[in-house]
């Protein structure tokens, strides 16, 4: 366990932060005996700044999301955590007046490279949103197949849809009503449908922005269990307001405040012995 103070997060550019490997014996990453099924890719953010017009929302942060691990982004509303993840798959620039500076690497590929196809970036870095957003006029089957068709994937669509629904833990619940509309499902099922749609196109990374905050506790639990399965195939970045959710699902946790990365470490360390007093105050509920 490290009690050493971290360098101040304000200075830029800063070294890219990674949690110390094996900071605590028996950490979550070590405890997970299940084996990785397919190698996800790591994401590295270097000196990332994000603007809304002239307002600087993310003030130059650097961190590395390890492959096949779950990294949680926590922090109070407006701290910039959602903005960071939206920069990773280039969603941020879709907002009028918004722009990003700095580097985002997917393994050794520059996400903001001049020859990069934005659509291909978003296929490789999938996203699940707070509110389940299935295509309202489409059937359950078509919702999952839509992503495949949009991305021009060939092959057996039926098989891929089944695989994706199984991967999202939804197959048994919907296999007999695939032709029914997706919006007829419960909120939790709709969210898993969106996850199935996301994984159908075989991304490398899945970003989840508050994926369970609109769901009931049982549906939340299912999503959290699913995250543990998904990380065997993908790299997961999860933005959450729910600190207990971060504690339950994430291998590593990044704490942001006012557009800065305050602390990034093994989740266990963040919740038992954080280095920065601001992290301590936030996780113990002294502000926020």
């Amino acid at each position, binding site marked *: *366990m490290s009690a050493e103070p971290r360098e101040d997060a304000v200075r830029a550019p800063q070294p890219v932060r990674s949690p110390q490997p094996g900071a605590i014996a028996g950490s979550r990453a070590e405890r997970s005996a299940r084996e990785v099924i397919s190698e996800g890719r790591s994401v590295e953010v270097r000196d990332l700044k994000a603007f809304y017009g002239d307002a600087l929302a993310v003030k130059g942060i650097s961190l590395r999301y390890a492959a096949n691990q779950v990294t949680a982004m926590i922090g109070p509303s407006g701290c910039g955590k959602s903005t960071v993840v939206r920069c990773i798959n280039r969603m941020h620039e879709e907002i009028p007046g918004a722009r990003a500076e700095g580097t985002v690497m997917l393994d050794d590929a520059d996400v903001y490279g001049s020859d990069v196809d934005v659509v291909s970036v978003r296929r490789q870095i999938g996203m699940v949103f707070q509110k389940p957003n299935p295509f309202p006029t489409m059937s359950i089957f078509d919702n999952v197949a839509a992503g495949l068709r949009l991305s021009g994937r060939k092959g057996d669509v039926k098989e891929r849809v089944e695989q994706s629904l199984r991967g999202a833990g939804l197959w048994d619940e919907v296999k007999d009503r695939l032709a029914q509309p997706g919006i007829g499902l419960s909120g939790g099922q709709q969210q898993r449908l969106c996850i199935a749609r996301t994984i159908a196109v075989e991304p490398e990374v899945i970003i989840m922005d508050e994926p369970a905050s609109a769901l009931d506790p049982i549906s939340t639990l299912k999503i959290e269990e699913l995250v543990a399965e998904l990380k065997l195939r993908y790299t997961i970045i999860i933005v959450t307001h729910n600190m207990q959710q971060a504690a339950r699902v994430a291998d590593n946790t990044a704490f942001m405040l006012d557009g800065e990365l305050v602390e990034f470490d093994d989740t266990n360390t963040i*919740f038992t*012995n954080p280095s920065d007093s601001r*992290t*301590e*105050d936030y996780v113990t*509920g002294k*502000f*926020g």
Partner: protein
Amino acid sequence: MAMGTGRQHFQEELRGLELQALGGIDLVVATLDRTLEALEQQDIELASIVVHDDDRIDGRYLEVQQGILSLLALQAPVASDLRVVAALLHVIKHVERMGDQCVNIAKMLPVVGYEPPKDEAMLEYIFRMGRLARSEVAQAKQAFLLRDVAVAEDLVRQDHEINRLNRCVFSRAVEIGTDADRREWAMSMMLVSRAIERIGDNAVDIGEQVAFVVTGEFREFSDASRVP
């Protein structure tokens, strides 16, 4: 970012739980005083009060343990709050053990009887141990309240002296002579000495919890397997 009062209710509850657990240490100090007085005065009645009064310490243990379980279940404390809660669980267990050691001492008094064949030198060692143990226990509480690692670490120094005196009691018992009554008395006093020595160890253990709360790192102040 809203800087509010945060989890005020929870913080009050946690503080209350800490005071309840550390109040358990006060109970031990009072019990230890009575125990040592009973020993000094050969007061078997007072010793019997010590034995019966242990229910209060046991009751405190149960209250604090229940409070900790509720707090864990309902408030999900993390970081330094979590460390305090975990440490309090240890503290209250040590309180309960120290109470039991006082009972062990008190139960020896009727065994040795009203007119035991005393050895003044051996008793002197034991009374000094008793005073040191009392001081250690009180200091452990202060260290916890103040979150003062230096005060906690100082317990080790005092505990070494208790251990040294315990060995003196042992040597004296070995050389007590051939008289059967005297030997029986010495053996009983050896058990008393051992109980006091254990109380000192428990106080040091509480000190280790103080260091854990402050630093987030658990370490033994002294390694019992290596200290002579």
